[in-house]
């Protein structure tokens, strides 16, 4: 009796489930559900969590991570990895800071220089990986070291501060007195990223390149050019994140972004992308970054030590991928 009723409900739900799955709506269903659970939990556990102030606080805190993770998403879709994002972030900020404060360039030009150096670092990654045929792990590991070294050299290892007021104003600008500038930047960049992956031929081609490089090549796709573009974009985005950080702190730190590459990879993976390539989306990555941000913020509010926070985030990474693996296995 009860079995029959369950089966009847199952039959009615199944087509809806299939409909949603075919449209990719469930691809990040698990992570979204996880995020909702976290938000509900912290809302109950802390009076302060679900306030406008705190929500934008979380968004601001993850903005740097989110920008870097956006580039990382593109790279991971192509079955690559970029370990250099944290160092390139520091290098971009350092070059902008030095050209302004030491070389006396106008601030706008210093910003262009900072972004440019990020793109160049990414381009070098891309060239090493495609033309030099280095594994992405090795090429970007080398860049992780080299870019950090350059960042220290440029700044002589010291923070550089003192930027024009307008630059600080941008850093502290809040739309409607609540939405910080960095959140606006993240929004715009994610919209661009979403559009690129969905509606641009080269963006869509990334899934084929990552899914099966040989098939992509034999389908006439310009694999080499696409990969170079993707690593360059990742470098550029790291530099953007670096400048967002400088604007917020009003200071260039040569040690900024140490270990950020691991957070970025975590955000992408928690969102549901596969390190094997061919799977991933900017929405999923944003959800992944939000999960990390909400966890850190919520655990802080609950006075959980940062050591325990690391343990929890480790558990979340393993758990997310474990769930994903189970889901794929049952789907078979």
């Amino acid at each position, binding site marked *: 009796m009860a079995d029959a009723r369950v089966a009847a409900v199952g039959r009615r739900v199944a087509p809806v489930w299939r409909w949603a799955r*075919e*449209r990719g709506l469930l691809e990040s269903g698990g992570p979204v559900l996880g995020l909702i659970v976290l938000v509900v939990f912290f809302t109950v556990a802390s009076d302060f969590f679900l306030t406008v102030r705190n929500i934008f606080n979380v968004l601001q805190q993850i903005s740097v991570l989110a920008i870097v993770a956006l580039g990382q998403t593109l790279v991971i879709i192509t079955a690559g990895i970029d370990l250099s994002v944290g160092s390139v972030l520091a290098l971009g900020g350092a070059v902008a800071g030095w050209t302004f404060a030491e070389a006396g360039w106008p601030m706008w030009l210093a910003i262009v220089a900072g972004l440019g150096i990020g793109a160049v670092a990414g381009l070098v990654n891309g060239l090493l990986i495609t033309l030099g045929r280095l594994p992405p792990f090795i090429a970007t590991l080398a860049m992780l070291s080299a870019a950090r070294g350059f960042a220290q050299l440029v700044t002589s290892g010291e923070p550089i501060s003192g930027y024009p007021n307008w630059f600080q104003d941008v850093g502290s600008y809040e739309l409607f007195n609540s939405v910080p500038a960095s959140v606006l930047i993240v929004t715009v960049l994610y919209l661009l990223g979403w559009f690129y992956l*969905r*509606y*641009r*031929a*080269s963006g*869509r*081609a990334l*899934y*084929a390149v990552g*899914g*099966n490089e*040989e*098939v*992509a*090549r*034999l*389908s*006439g*796709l*310009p694999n080499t050019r696409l990969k170079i573009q993707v690593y360059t974009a990742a470098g550029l985005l790291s530099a953007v994140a670096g400048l967002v950080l400088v604007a917020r702190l009003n200071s260039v730190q040569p040690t900024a972004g140490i270990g950020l590459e691991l957070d970025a990879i975590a955000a992408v993976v928690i969102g549901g992308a596969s390190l094997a390539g*061919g*799977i991933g989306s900017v929405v999923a990555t944003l959800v992944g970054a939000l999960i990390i941000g909400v966890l850190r913020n919520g655990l802080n509010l609950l006075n959980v030590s940062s050591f325990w926070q690391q343990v929890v985030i480790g558990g979340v990474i393993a758990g997310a991928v474990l769930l994903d693996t189970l889901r794929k296995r049952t789907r078979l």
Partner: protein
Amino acid sequence: MGARAGSEEPPGRGLVCQGLTKRFPGVVALQDVDLDVDYGEVVCVLGENGAGKSTLSNIISGALPQDAGTMSLDGDPYAPHSPADAIAAGIGMIHQETTLLPELSVAENVLLGRLPERAGVVDWRELNARARELLARVGCKVNPQVPAARLSVAQGRQVEIARALSLDARILILDEPTASLGAEEAETLFQLVRDLKEQGVGFIYISHRLSEVAEIGTRVIVLRDGKRVAEWDQPDVPVAELVRAMVGRDVEQVYPEPPPVQGEELLRVELLSRRGAFSDVSFTLRRGEILGIAGLVGAGRSELARALFGAEPADAGRIWLDGKPYEARKPAAAVAAGLVLVPEERKTQGLVLHLPVEENLALPSLQQLAVAGILRPAAERKLASTWINRLAIRGRPQQPAGTLSGGNQQKVVIAKWLPRNPKVVIFDEPTRGVDVGARQAIYELIDELADQGVGVIVISSDLPEVIGLSHRVLVLSGGHQAGVLERGEADQEKVMALALGA
């Protein structure tokens, strides 16, 4: 659910499977199938793709659990939970795709997991001696110390059989063992199967090539839609009857008469060479012409195709396409010039398996589908539905390409090129692992392309196919151009004689 009564079954010799059933979401892959294999016989299992052959062999080899049914081995219950269990019980499986580890030596591959040791370190002399002995048993003459990557497909298959025998396999499942073998290598494999049969090894032999049944089988069973639909106790079954049982209707396996050649020269290849693969190949291809390329495996056929397509560029020679000099440096350039390749391995070269059918179809046309640089999902969907209909591809546009049957996968690999209106289409083994119905559809498509004025090159190990389809057959032998035979003068003996260099 009613368990099948197993009490009255007599203890049999060899493997006895009763009532095997397996359901996957939305499909019954195997339904109430009985199968028994005695030692010293070769039971051929035939069926179209999706008929349940792989499911059956996966259950027997322990890779999949059955939903219902029982198996016994020499009268004892046999219920493997993993391939390791099956191997321990004496049942080995040789997969269609190689499972050798390319970086390890042949000897290590043969004795993987059981390397002889002395004082805690691998005893290489003993290892190589044991491997040599096992390889001799299967008539394989390779040096056990070379890495497996250097073996030909045929040699690899021998090594895998040697490995199974070293594990005391008494029943071997061969899944399409000749799929990537040339005629001569296939014959060597048949001889090995016959020898082992004499020594008392039982075989379950899964194949698409109907002629092989009479060649080595002792009994035949046919699966269709997961059910056992026909069986014969002797292998001399007329091919037409086998085909009828497989497809459930009459299909005359005739090659459509190719349409008349339309004259103009489309492709001219002069003294094309690639070191270590082929040398000094020259031919022309006219509009509407179908040129067959035959030869043994390793004769340089696929390499020639890949060179024309720019996948592995040639290092000498000249090519003209449509009257213009054409230099194939990379596939993207070939596609832009109007020359496309339907590659040999659809799973690793033709399709991104996890992506939906529609995205695979759109792959070569992404730039063309965009308006002002923006892709329109509606145009993509239309492209997909158009070609799914035109080629009668059985599958939904949103379905991952890897979940289609072999024949439908192959149709997708072909269909993805057609929106680009290619001038020359090269088919490399277009019907390998493709069932009879889809095969006919592919033949008709090839003719249709030629009729529209496309120049077609067909590479195939299936001699009747390459002869039946083509206006002319170019035969390669050991990387050299052994000859070109006109339609009418080409027959299997002549082609084979040229291919063998006789």
